[in-house]
């Protein structure tokens, strides 16, 4: 397969996945903003969302103060923001168009129709009138795109590069979500308790909604209940989203897919890239949440993101844009 073709396929999937994750994060923020909360907490929520994607400086340069409307605008429709839903879906569609001959008719038409339909929905301002429904639509177009891909593509290199893109992006996005939300929640939670002990009970109630919102944002609320049969505890949320191999959006599950698809495309080549991916997987396989929390979640996730990023660079150099 042409390297350029593989490159387009890889990025088409990454952008589709990124659009979905942006929608998920916006949705959870939007849902929590409907709960009674302090202005400061609300502000923190929207700011955290921008930090997840490392977009806070770009946002502030453009809009200054954090306001829910401006953040939504920036993250949904702004063509100048490469992580906005519109930008992601456009990039996904452009990459698909560049290799439409490699895709099955169904995969291409799904991408193209998503793009055409997005224009109609944005034109009708659905993202302002009914954000929940809009984000749901973005998520389901991504589900459809993945399903059509797995359901119709020949199981060869093209499919494996697309899957690589999907899971590398997902590993990155889940790690970012955890990092930012944990930081924000932890400080807020402790702040509430330390400030006035008598509000501890309320604080915990409120906390429950926050944690459950995180779980819902990665479709893990029901899974949590099923796996732990217990109240929601931050440590377990972290364990579920980092270490559980059976949780589809966890770091472990995502990296396992990366390793598997990498093996399918690499043959005997790209030894070093495969070794590093394998080692990352081994650490997730044999890691314990206590150890991770003992060394500090933020430090752990920062290092994880660096390694995922490095894998992306290496995959690009080995296969997609060879010198």
């Amino acid at each position, binding site marked *: *397969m*042409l390297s*350029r073709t593989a490159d387009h396929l890889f990025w088409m999937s990454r952008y589709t996945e990124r659009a979905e994750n942006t929608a998920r994060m916006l949705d959870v923020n939007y849902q929590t903003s409907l709960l009674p909360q302090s202005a400061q907490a609300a502000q923190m929520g929207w700011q955290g969302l921008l930090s997840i994607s490392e977009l806070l400086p770009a946002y502030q340069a453009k809009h200054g103060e954090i306001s829910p409307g401006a953040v939504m605008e920036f993250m949904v429709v702004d063509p100048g923001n490469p992580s906005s839903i519109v930008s992601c879906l456009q990039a996904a569609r452009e990459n698909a168009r*560049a290799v439409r*001959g490699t895709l099955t008719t169904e995969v*291409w*038409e799904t991408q193209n129709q998503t793009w055409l339909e997005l224009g109609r929905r944005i034109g009708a301002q659905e993202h302002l009138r009914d954000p929940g429904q809009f984000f749901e639509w973005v998520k389901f177009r991504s589900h459809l795109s993945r399903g059509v891909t797995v359901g119709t593509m020949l199981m060869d290199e093209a499919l494996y590069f697309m899957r690589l893109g999907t899971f590398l992006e997902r590993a990155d996005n889940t790690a970012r979500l955890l990092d930012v939300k944990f930081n924000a929640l932890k400080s807020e939670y402790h702040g509430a308790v330390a400030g006035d002990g008598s509000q501890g009970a309320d604080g915990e109630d409120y906390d429950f909604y926050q944690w459950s919102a995180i779980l819902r944002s990665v479709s893990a609320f029901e899974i949590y209940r099923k796996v732990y049969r217990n109240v929601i505890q931050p440590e377990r949320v972290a364990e579920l989203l980092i270490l559980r191999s059976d949780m589809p959006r966890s770091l472990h599950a995502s990296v396992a897919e990366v390793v598997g698809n990498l093996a399918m*495309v690499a043959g005997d080549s790209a030894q070093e890239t495969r070794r590093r991916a394998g080692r990352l997987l081994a650490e997730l396989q044999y890691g314990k949440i206590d150890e991770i929390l003992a060394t500090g979640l933020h430090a752990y996730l920062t290092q994880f993101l660096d390694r995922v990023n490095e894998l992306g660079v290496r995959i690009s150099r080995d296969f997609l844009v060879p010198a």
Partner: protein
Amino acid sequence: MKKFDEMVATLPEGLVRSLPWEGQPMAGVRPHYEAYAAWLAGRTAAQMAARREEAEMVFRRVGITFAVYGAKDEDGAGTERLIPFDLIPRVIPAHEWRRMEKGLVQRVTALNRFLHDVYHEQEILKSGVIPSEQITQNAQFRKEMMGVNVPNQVYSHIAGIDIVRAPDASGEGVYYVLEDNLRVPSGVSYMLEDRRMMMRLFPDLFSQHRVAPVMHYPDLLLETLRASSQSAAQSGAQDPTVVVLTPGMYNSAYFEHAFLAQQMGVELVEGQDLFVKDRYVYMRTTRGPRRVDVIYRRVDDDFLDPAVFRPNSTLGCHGLVEAYAAGNVTICNAIGTGVADDKSIYPYVPKMIEFYLGEKPILSNVPTYMGRDPEDLKYILAHLPELVVKEVHGAGGYGMLVGPAASAQEIADFRRVLEANPGGYIAQPTLSLSSCPTFVDSGVAPRHIDLRPFVLSGKEVQMVPGGLTRVALKEGSLVVNSSQGGGTKDTWILED
């Protein structure tokens, strides 16, 4: 100007009919249109409008669009438009097609013989049939090609021959070749997609008519390209690697490039995917370099190789021409075919047919006056309001004067341009191009059409029955180019 319609023998002035017209049959429907006309008479306007909407929706969803040069939307991405598709097919009876097919084989064979001759012995120039300066002074003549041997001695593997129909003196329809496109003719994907769309929208019509199939075109094309590799031409065996070379997704014909590559099951490459090493061409793949044997290029000569042609081109591949001259890769169409489809060479094609094949031309040329000939020029200048004047190197319907449709001012302006550079122009009488019933806002009305069959030359010359019918959607317009408001129709060769 005399009217000549494909469907009805006599066309009332400005005929527009609204659907349905059941019970009021059209007069003088030609035999090969009878079944269709009877079917059409029973449709309602609403039915047809719904079908048209469905077609547009599908074309947009499938992304059968073309980019318009120069037009950009606010994001800077090329604007994609649909080519208007008309629901009423253009029908050609089998006996007419058989004759046209023979004529096309003859014409394209002679043109390929001519190209071989021009880049080798130049017998036709030596014998004085064509003036030498017509070739050697021609910007499309590529001296790099002198003495280069190409497989099967075929230069134009894919030729698009533009044909119009017009009445002769006795009122009978005659097919004329308007133009030979021997470089990178496009439009074949619309021929195929239009057929697919018609079969989807009107399956009942295809059970009532015996329409010759065209969907095997990609197979014939692949066969032609494979037969054109050096190894296939020499030993007949081998499994050559064929690729389609596109300028990229912002090219106006990108859909077609991707479509053909997919249908043939070959790689669609851009210049950046190719490189030349030791005079062999390779593509960059995820498993390292892979040899390329045949390049179906959809990039003009000028952009193919920055080492030989435009040095700033990024669409081609450095060293390609050297690999080509060494016989290590086949380029389809060959470099330098433009010297045979230039409008200043067109008038000589009938003589070429006689010179190389010793046959009388089966298809007629449109009578042509050459600005470079003083006698002809005198005639042109005296008859501007009646003539169509074209730039010799023009394409896409630009840089031309349609005398009968031009204002006095436009004619005066054009006269000055012409007088300044008479050699750059040819002129032809304004043919009363045939029309075909077409859906318009007010109903069904006649619109002018042409036809582009695609002729493939590998080991043999072959084609699918039919071609792309283009239609000028503006009332009275003779310009069918998609860049200027033209649309397309399905073309039916009706078996007897």
